């Protein structure tokens, strides 16, 4: 049970400030939704947390310690948006999952662990020998989740993991995310542009705009009684969320 914390985090690329003093807490064993539109800095924040983007101010901690960004021990893992890009097309599913495991286990142990993880994400363990091209988008995203879990993380960042999927498989991945939190007690930062999706998986939500958090709080609270204008605007924009529009 570990808390992931962003304290006054700033990320700059050249002269542009992508993330501007963001403070955010993902309580142990909870799912926090991070909502925002393109260019709001939500993906940059995620990439900064795992060391893929430079942090120019503030700190990111996991259980009170800075997130380790060197060496093999990586207790903070990330799942990416595009399942077609996040698996090496030339390595088997099992290879990709095993790569993230901590060193020092035997070949047999690794194989057993891969099978356990694939079952955990509801994939047939026999799929370990398959290349990603044999899998559907939803299945690939499960493999990506299994790979993240292979590193024995204490927290996971999920960056728009359902937005590249067809609606019929999106539900299965969302169910899996909720299940993994429940069963493994993971702290999850769940990034999405879709308020309905965030409402379904996250107990807390933060709204990001122009690199700043404009509002955060319990999901039920923020989505029913938004305090910031931008949150209201987002809510009003959800299709099907308001009265049907006038027609001729």
């Amino acid at each position, binding site marked *: 049970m570990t808390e992931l914390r962003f304290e006054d985090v700033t990320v700059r690329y050249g002269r542009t400030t992508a993330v501007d003093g963001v403070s955010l807490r993902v309580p142990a064993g909870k799912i926090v939704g991070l909502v925002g539109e393109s260019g709001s800095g939500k993906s940059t924040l995620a990439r900064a947390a795992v060391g893929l983007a430079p942090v120019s101010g503030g700190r990111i901690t996991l259980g009170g310690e800075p997130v380790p960004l060197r060496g093999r021990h990586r207790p903070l893992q990330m799942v990416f948006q595009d399942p077609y890009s996040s698996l090496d097309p030339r390595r088997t599913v099992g290879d990709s999952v095993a790569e993230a495991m901590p060193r020092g286990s035997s070949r047999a142990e690794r194989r057993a662990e891969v099978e356990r993880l694939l079952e955990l994400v509801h994939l*047939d363990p026999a799929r370990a020998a398959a290349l990603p091209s044999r899998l559907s988008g939803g*299945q690939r995203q499960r493999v990506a989740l299994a790979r993240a879990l292979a590193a024995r993380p204490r927290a996971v960042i999920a960056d728009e993991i359902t937005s590249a999927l067809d*609606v019929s498989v999106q539900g299965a991945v969302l169910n899996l995310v909720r299940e993994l939190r429940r069963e493994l007690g993971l702290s999850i930062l769940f990034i999405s542009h879709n308020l*309905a999706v965030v409402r379904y998986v996250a107990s807390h939500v933060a709204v990001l705009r122009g690199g700043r958090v404009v509002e955060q709080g319990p999901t039920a609270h923020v989505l029913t009684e938004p305090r910031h204008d931008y949150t209201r605007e987002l809510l*009003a924009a*959800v*299709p099907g969320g308001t009265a049907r*529009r006038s*027609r001729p």
Partner: protein
Amino acid sequence: MPHRWSRVARSPLGLVATALLVAVAALAALGPVLWGDAAEAVDTGNILAGPSAAHWAGTDNLGRDILARVLVASRLSVVLALLAVAIAVVVGLLLGTAPFLLGRRAGRLVSAAVNTAVAFPGLLLALFFAVVFGVGETGAVLAIGLAGAPAFARLVHTLVSGVAARDFVAAARVAGVGRARILVRHVLPNIAEPLVVNATIGAGSALLSFAGLSFLGLGVQSPSFDWGRLLYDGAAALYLNPAAALAPGAAVLLAGLAFNLVGESVAKGLGIEGLGVAAAGRWVVPGGAAAPATAPDPAPAEVGEPADDVVLGVRDLAVSFPGPSGPVRPVRGVSFDVRRGEAVGIVGESGCGKSLTALAVTRLVDDDARVEATRLHLLGTDLRAAQTTADRRMLGTALAVVFQDPMTSLNPAHRIGAQLAEVATHHQGMTRGRAAARAVDRLDAVRIPDPGERARQYPHEFSGGMRQRAMIGMGLMGTPALIVADEPTTALDVTVQRQVLDLLSDVRASDAVALLLISHDVAVVGEVCDRVLVMYAGRIVEDLPAAELAGARHPYTRALVDAVPDMDTDLDEPLATIPGRPVDPADVPAGCAYAARCPLADARCRGEDPPLRADPHAPGRRVACWHAGEPLPPSRVVRADLVQSP
């Protein structure tokens, strides 16, 4: 993977090239053994002779047989070329992967140096190095190798950057895998194919460059000889015996071609750009699954004769493409009407044929597609017939089309205003000035602030939402009766999506314009449209009023509605899921296409495709299901993927 390579060898060009390359290799191996003595046999009585029966290409200034010398020279020529290309590849790999290994700053310096070097032509670099290393074989190998290195370094750098930008490299980094290990495990295997191809082409170029240097007298020196040296000697005697120059010339050419053609045909077969511009995209192998030779014909449409107020009437629309094993039909018999002022939505998952349907009814499918229909009428004009100028004018002004990606749908080389004005000058006979004024007026109508100024800007100066509004404005240059919008908001943020949807509604409200909206998002279609057509595997499976989506009768529509969480979804229940995966248009099963994923499916569903019939219980609704409206079994376990359909 192996079958891709064998496909290359089976193409006629690949076959010829491979044979040629094998011949060159054999000649290089055996040439000096077989003709070594003949090439050195001096005959002072017969110098600089023309072609004869004894000497097919004549003799040189010592009376040696030129043809034998050409055959013998093959080994040295090929070996030197391979050495040079090896240098180019090794140095290129070192320089090209350095930016990845060294990190941002040092990497930028290396790639800047490579880019500066690439700007100078290989021959100039080769001359430079030839001066430095001195005239002769060794100097020339080093010169040509180093001269080729920058181009290779740049190629490697481009390929590496392409792979490095992909998420699996980021995932490996997040997992704590070191850069060198990522390079070896993930990056190099993914760029090996284009590298091999380009190295092959590079060997051909090196061979020709070497001949060039030797021809200038800067390469191989007497008494050694390669093809270039023979050319040099032959060109000196060109007026006495042209064959003395043409024979080695032909040899160089054939050998160079062998390398180049093998490289190019492999590149073509594998889908790699040649010319050093390799694309590091996904190489998707077309599915090998055989399409049924004759897809079961859908039952005739049960839609009556179109009424008077029909803007768009479609009956039995089918679209097919030539596939590797017979035609593929992604749209298999679609019938519907759009009435004046009506908003009709088409929903379905990717690959269900909804976008293709939109393109087919607007006559915008690609040329290799075949569109068939028993009726395809827009405002009374038969779109199946050849289009006259008048038809084109009608289509250009009465039909507006909005596409998914506003970033790519406007021409980057023209100003926004000009792209709108074009419609008016071509179809409405306006002068340029009046058309430009109309364009500004239309930009204003789609709420683009400061339209006069904006009309003079290029698409890249517009945001995504503004471009989509400009696209709608383009459709409003005429007086449209129908707007066909293919996923118009998918690429946009929610707040911008809201604005675009509002704009489309306002346009409809003001002029009773009909709308055909294609979307994967049931919520969007449900909100904007009057009527919804649900497509699955190239057919309409249900046609119902948007307001009644919650009471859909087809199990697919019901699952689609339930699978998407909305702001009222019960948080205590798992979301509905649809097991299996969508149907591949190249492999449509017999019977109901949805049967494999359907909880209600029985033997009849798997054997007999249900026709789209008017629903007897609900007038104005159509559904294609043998079990329409039957209660679904209690929610299925999430473990569905363990029992994977093929």
